[in-house]
């Protein structure tokens, strides 16, 4: 038998102040980053929102002969500073490609004053935006060769390699509606989790697990703001995954605490929780390690488009494990101690910590006789 992490006795909960200080530090960094960026004139936005959320310009480019691969086009756009274009092949016209680039921020500032004519504010701004987007794509595609400019067709200009045959502005795929819906759906989901854990374990555990989830999501967003990773539709999927992972991890440890409490009614809750974390540590490290390993493969080899998705998962997996030990358990214990104190004042009788867990059931740990 090959074993790791046996007989470990780490005082996890004793370090809770360090953990909480660390979490607060990261969240403050995120807060400063979002607020700072939002209110710095001329600076970037709080989050680096992609075309999915912001809209931008779509450019249709037609190439002569073989067209460069999606990745080559993406590389050329990176070179001119577009971090997150959407490259979509046009399968019925193989020589054409659709390139979506996000809004260029500062052009809207330049084109802010609409002409005195009654053009209707939006459209001039829009033209400037489309023009800026076209210019960006053109400067990127020029690395493949020259464009057939103006009215010259691609066939009639021997030197040209490509021609931009269409430009237009596009709105957001994921408008505020989808964003809000994702948030409300997740919140309702968390309420469901809260109720179920409260039913199976205890309110204090439910609160611990759900607060840990909030912690994880906020921390991931903090990372995204500080490092200005692009937020696109895939990040929503990643955040949903992180929520699931974090809750799963919390329950595994709570389950062990519940079991140990039922067997051992003399030790303090503090000690039992520490023990439970240590007992499940090998499982925690193996599971989280394996998931981390797979996500790491996705970060390194998954390609540009999945980068936001895999980075969010990477940070989320680490945090989901961390928050169970650093956030969920201390909160559950802290709350139970408060409830316990209140009770002691009421009945003026000493109580063992185990009995404070009103709804923790014993039936789950009844060991059935083994039949052969």
């Amino acid at each position, binding site marked *: 038998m*090959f*074993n790791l992490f*046996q007989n470990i006795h780490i005082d996890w909960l004793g370090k809770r102040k360090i953990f909480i200080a660390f979490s607060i530090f990261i969240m403050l960094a995120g807060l400063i980053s979002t607020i700072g960026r939002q209110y710095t004139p001329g600076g970037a936005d709080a989050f680096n929102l992609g075309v999915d959320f912001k*809209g931008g310009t*779509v450019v249709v480019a037609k190439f002569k002969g073989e067209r460069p691969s*999606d990745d080559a086009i993406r590389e050329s756009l990176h070179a001119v500073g577009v971090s997150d274009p*959407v490259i*979509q*092949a*046009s*399968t*019925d016209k193989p020589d054409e490609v*659709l390139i979506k680039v996000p809004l260029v921020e500062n052009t809207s500032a330049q084109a802010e004053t609409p002409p005195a004519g*009654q053009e*209707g504010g*939006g*459209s001039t701004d*829009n033209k400037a935006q489309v023009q800026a987007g076209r210019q960006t794509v053109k400067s990127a595609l020029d690395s493949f060769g020259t464009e057939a400019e103006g009215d010259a067709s691609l066939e009639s200009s021997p030197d040209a390699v490509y021609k931009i045959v269409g430009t237009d*502005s*596009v*709105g957001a*795929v994921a408008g505020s509606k*989808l964003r809000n*819906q*994702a948030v409300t*759906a997740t919140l309702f*989901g*968390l309420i*469901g989790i809260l109720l*179920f854990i409260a039913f199976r374990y205890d309110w204090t555990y439910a609160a611990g697990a759900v607060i840990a989830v909030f912690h994880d999501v906020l921390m991931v967003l903090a990372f995204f703001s500080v490092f200005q990773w692009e937020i696109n539709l*895939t990040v*929503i*999927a990643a955040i*949903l995954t992180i*929520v*699931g992972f974090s*809750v799963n991890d919390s*329950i*595994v440890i709570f389950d062990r605490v519940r*079991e140990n409490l039922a067997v051992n009614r003399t030790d303090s809750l503090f000690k039992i929780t520490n023990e439970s974390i240590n*007992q*499940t540590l*090998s*499982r925690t490290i*193996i*599971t989280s390690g*394996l*998931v981390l*390993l*797979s996500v790491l*493969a*996705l970060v390194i*080899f*998954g390609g540009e*488009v*999945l980068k936001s998705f895999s980075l969010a*998962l990477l940070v989320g997996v680490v945090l989901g494990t961390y928050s169970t030990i650093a956030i969920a358990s201390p909160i559950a214990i802290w709350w139970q101690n408060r409830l316990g104190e209140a009770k002691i004042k009421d009945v003026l009788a000493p109580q063992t910590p185990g009995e404070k867990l009103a709804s923790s059931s014993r039936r789950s740990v009844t060991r*059935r006789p*083994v*039949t052969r």
Partner: protein
Amino acid sequence: MKNTSLWIRTVIILGITLVGIYLVFGPRHTPTSADFTWQGIKNNLANNINLGLDLKGGSHLVMRVKTEDYLKTLTVNNELAAVQAAKDAKDENSQPFPVGEGSYVAENGNYAFTVNVNDPTKAQAVVDAIKKKVDLVNWTESINGGAINWTLPKQMQARLKEQATDQALKIIESRINAFGVKEPTLQRQGSADSGQILLQMPGLENPERVKELIKGESKLELMKVVSPPNPSPVQTYNTEEAARQTIGGKDSDTRKVLPYVERDETVIKAGQQPADQKPTKFAVVEVPAVVDGGELRDAAAVQGRAGGSDYQISFSFKPTGAQKFGDWTGKNIGNYMAVVLNGEIKSVAYIKSQIFDQGEISGKFSKNSAEDLALTLKSGALPAAIEYQEERTVGPSLGADSIRSGVTASIGGLVLVVLFMLFYYRGSGVNAVVALALNMLLTVGALIMFGSTLTLPGIAGLILGIGMAVDSNVLIFERIREELRLGYLVPEAISLGFDRAFVTIIDTHITTIISSVILYITGSGPIKGFAVTLILGLLINLFTAVFVSRTIFNWELSRKTDMQKLSI
């Protein structure tokens, strides 16, 4: 005895595995020898799984809402309403105002209408009377003698066009969702008032039908027919001219001529030939309509009384519409009422008794055309007609290259997991790998069975499901090891390990399933896709990680009843 139950478990597992293999890799046609070749299996797999827009691509449609038509309709309606309001109003002496005919301009970006008052001194009073009845906040008014003019400023035109586009976007969205197009993307294109909408949707079997469905105007009106009441037959005319003669040669503000096409199947032109079409007749109806499609609460296609392929559409009204309809039918018993769809009379019925909220459109509809029509009616009428401007098929929005690298990376990650399990848990690791493989096979099989479309969020759900499947195995194995360390014998340790870990696994799985079900109910598009794969993955994992894995252990135990050492 023990062995029989083991056999039963094994047969169940093998049966489900075979079903899974068929669902994922099997052909949906009579199998040929080609289906057993590597290429054939790959083709079948590709055919069976519906991949979403982000993974596979689909149609790319640019359409435009004819916003100038919307403004024109608005102008015409306001003109009619204003003239009517002016005619209905009384001056301080309870005398009607001397109001003449109105006129309107709706071209070249100019939208305006004029109400003429024969006595210029009364003009301001008429304006006040009109504004009490008609909402004209968006319009600029000017009085020039007896001519009162309302013009829609350019800025307001832009804003109204934008509103109309947004409204059309919502209606299109509800229509394609109701039709069951999986995870389309819908966005505005072009400048704010261009009226352009870009729709991308995954590959469909019948894109033409969806295109027709999207632009179906489906303007429903219930109108009173000018005709002697029942029992005389309804008054119709064979030519448009004959009908128009009866109302003084042209449509007036209160009456107009509409074609009456009986038995027309081609409302939504689904490509069929019209069935036994009778010659078009004409009838005179009263305007404005008694109630229109805006008052609809629900519409559904139902099979006609005659049965067979004859379908009709039954509809019901919202309370306000029901009240209007009820009042009107109460006063008009015996009169004829026309059901008008897109400016054509579809059916005429006489009112037998007061009706409040129910009605139906008969006429010979096919099942598809009735369903599509009901759907477009329910989603509300488009503010203006839609035209298609550009159509192309596009590759995956995530990019073919990055999908390939994503797949490679995922397979790499999976291989790492498998290698670790085999290395760390030895013989039992094989057990876990079998359970994991079966889990993935069955999850994909279930997705195919339910006709779900797999998109990136769906894959995220799949990843979390696989992660939790690995976790279940780790939980069980670590627990068995613990029990072994405590000195239990192998069979006892296995039994205890499974029993104890099962409690944890159930709790984690139920928690996640509960939240996923909530995500599925409250979420849309990508969120639903995530929830579906996760729910399926977890349900299947309860089967594979617990039932299947346990059965494999039991097989090992039954071969060596006095097992002293377990390879774990």
